[in-house]
């Protein structure tokens, strides 16, 4: 439905809703219930508020650097809400807050991770989401392998993975898609093109007309979509998943979006971004668009928004309070997961460390 209609080589972009929330192409609206749209919108709001909160506590020194999804929530929620829990897989990048929440990762896990504790990366049972992927584009290979196993075992799951526009410059971006297409595995490769790789603008990263065309070299179906348009992303992903489940192999979807915030809480985008362009871009904020859509449809109101904001703020505060109260690491934990069974030599090192810290107790955290 979508993949056939939009030619990335001609830079044709799937857009269904404009930036005022008006549906431009009703005939292209994906199948999704009003209830699901509302759920998606609330998740987008939750992720945005979490980012805002984390920015504050990070500045207070209560959290390490983290990567915010601000500006990219529509894309992340739209694809992640189509992952069937316990059946499908998600092989994420490092900037996926909205997707993690949507896929069912508890907020406290995410916060714990950014507070420097591996327990945050322990995905709860029943959720097939790999941990944060700090290297770039290596998660594409993992997705290909996960999908290979789905096909081999005939378990019917699909695998979603995502990287930034910068990630598409890495060799593994291409290598993994090539392997995936050769084996026609059920994987969906997403590029969240947020216009920057840290400070390198998209124009200095590639001369390609867009990122979707990068799928053409490996023979992969591909499409460019407006990544701030919840319905466009939802529709393209819905079609890609359906094709993958039917055994029709992988797809590449570029979601053209915009990173409203910094790369990480450690950098200042004002140094490298053009302020006029920034002001233009933030008019496309995906939250504003979907909210306007919902209000126009009488599915949402400012009163409900005020109530939701307060509820979400309280929830976020509570989650972080839990994290601050539970952010401990046991000495044994840093040894225990190196191998399935602790080898003798490592057990001796653990005993050595234990004796040392019993004699000279460590206060924990940075000293």
């Amino acid at each position, binding site marked *: 439905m979508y993949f056939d209609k939009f030619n990335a080589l001609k830079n044709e972009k799937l857009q269904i809703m404009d930036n005022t929330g008006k549906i431009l192409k009703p005939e292209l609206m994906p199948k999704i219930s009003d209830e699901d749209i509302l759920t998606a919108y609330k998740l987008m709001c939750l992720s945005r508020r979490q980012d805002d909160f984390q920015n504050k506590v990070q500045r207070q020194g209560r959290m390490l650097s983290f990567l915010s999804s601000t500006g990219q929530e529509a894309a992340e929620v739209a694809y992640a809400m189509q992952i069937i829990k316990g059946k499908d897989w998600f092989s994420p990048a490092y900037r996926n807050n909205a997707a993690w929440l949507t896929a069912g990762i508890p907020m406290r896990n995410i916060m714990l991770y950014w507070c420097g504790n*591996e327990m945050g*990366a322990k995905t709860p049972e029943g959720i097939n989401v790999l941990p944060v992927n700090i290297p770039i584009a*290596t998660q594409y*290979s*993992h997705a290909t*392998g996960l999908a290979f*196993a789905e096909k081999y075992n005939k378990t019917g799951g699909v695998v979603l993975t995502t990287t930034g526009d910068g990630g598409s410059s890495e060799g593994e971006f291409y290598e993994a898609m090539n392997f995936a297409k050769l084996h026609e595995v059920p994987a969906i490769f997403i590029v969240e093109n947020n216009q920057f790789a840290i400070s390198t603008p998209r124009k200095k990263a590639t001369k390609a007309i867009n990122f979707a065309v990068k799928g053409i070299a490996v023979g992969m179906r591909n499409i460019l979509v407006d990544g701030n348009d919840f319905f466009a992303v939802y529709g393209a992903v819905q079609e890609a998943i359906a094709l993958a489940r039917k055994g029709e192999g992988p797809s590449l979807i570029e979601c053209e979006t915009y990173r409203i915030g910094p790369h990480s809480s450690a950098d200042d985008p004002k140094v490298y971004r053009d302020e006029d362009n920034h002001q233009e871009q933030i008019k496309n904020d995906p939250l504003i668009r979907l909210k306007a859509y919902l209000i126009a449809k009488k599915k949402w109101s400012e009163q409900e928004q005020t109530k939701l904001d307060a509820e979400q703020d309280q929830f976020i505060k509570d989650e972080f309070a839990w994290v601050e109260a539970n952010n401990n690491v046991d000495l044994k934990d840093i040894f225990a*997961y190196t*191998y*399935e069974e602790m080898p003798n030599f490592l057990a001796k090192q653990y005993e050595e460390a234990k004796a040392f810290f019993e004699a000279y107790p460590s206060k924990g955290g940075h000293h």
Partner: protein
Amino acid sequence: MAVLNNIQALTHALDLAMEKHQNVIVYGEDAGYEGGVFRATVGLQQKYGEERCFDAPIAEATLVGTAVGMAINGLKPVVEIQFEGFSYPIIQQLFTHVARMRNRSRGRFTCPMVIRMPMGGGIRALEHHSEAMEAMFAHNPGLKVVIPSTPFDTKGLLLAAVESPDPVLFLEPTKIYRAFKQDIPDEYYTLPIGEGYKVQEGTDVTIVTYGAQVGDCEKAIEHLKGEGKNISVDLIDLRTIQPWDREMVIESVKKTGRLIVVHEAVRSFSVAAEVIATVNEKSFEYLKAPCARVTGYDIIVPFDRGEHFHQPSVQKIVVKIKEVLDYQF
């Protein structure tokens, strides 16, 4: 029993592994139809089909990266890298994901896999075909590193690697792929990863080695006997570089009071350095001579015409044994 060389033992072990474990997937560059550059996987595609044994595109990083996904999702990938000297593109996946996934996810996701590659020199090969980088791999916590020296060990250790819940780098000394044959049992058996093997018992000096140099050390000992020297050597084949058999080595040095470590890998930050440091920590007071090593020099592996200077030859080992035995404090 069958009389097999190292390559045949490998093929035999992979065959048994694929027969016993339906989740074993064998792939690599040319590993399918042709059976790999050294024919280690020959016949497996014909027997088990293209789904389980296939040629992969020349993209080493993704060979290992896909193995991460496969292993997390229940398969047991056995990946072939054509030569250790071509393993550098896999290092990011290996060090940032393969070695760490269990720890990162606190045990929720693990990626047990076997990565096989020919290693070492002495085969008159081109550049990048003769590297011995075991120390680099062993330096990364979370990986196991195995280097067999005989067909019997090759089979037993490869099957152990396939059964291992941890990722295993299986480094195969190219020089001895076809150098000799050995009677090995037909049935499925495993050898423990982490245990050394006492090739011969002795009381005067401990020699610790592995891979292709096990044979060189045996020849050196024979040579000394030929010279009429009555030297009694405790010869240890480590078989596993990480974890390595500290107990066997320490116990031996306590008996002999002398230690020589032999390997072809370059000297600095090497397995020899690690073994000697450990012996110093655990059995310093037993030493009758400084611990010694016969290794490659800290240089780029020379091309064929210069390689003989670099390899730890029988003669180099003979000279070092004499030096250590003659040492006077």
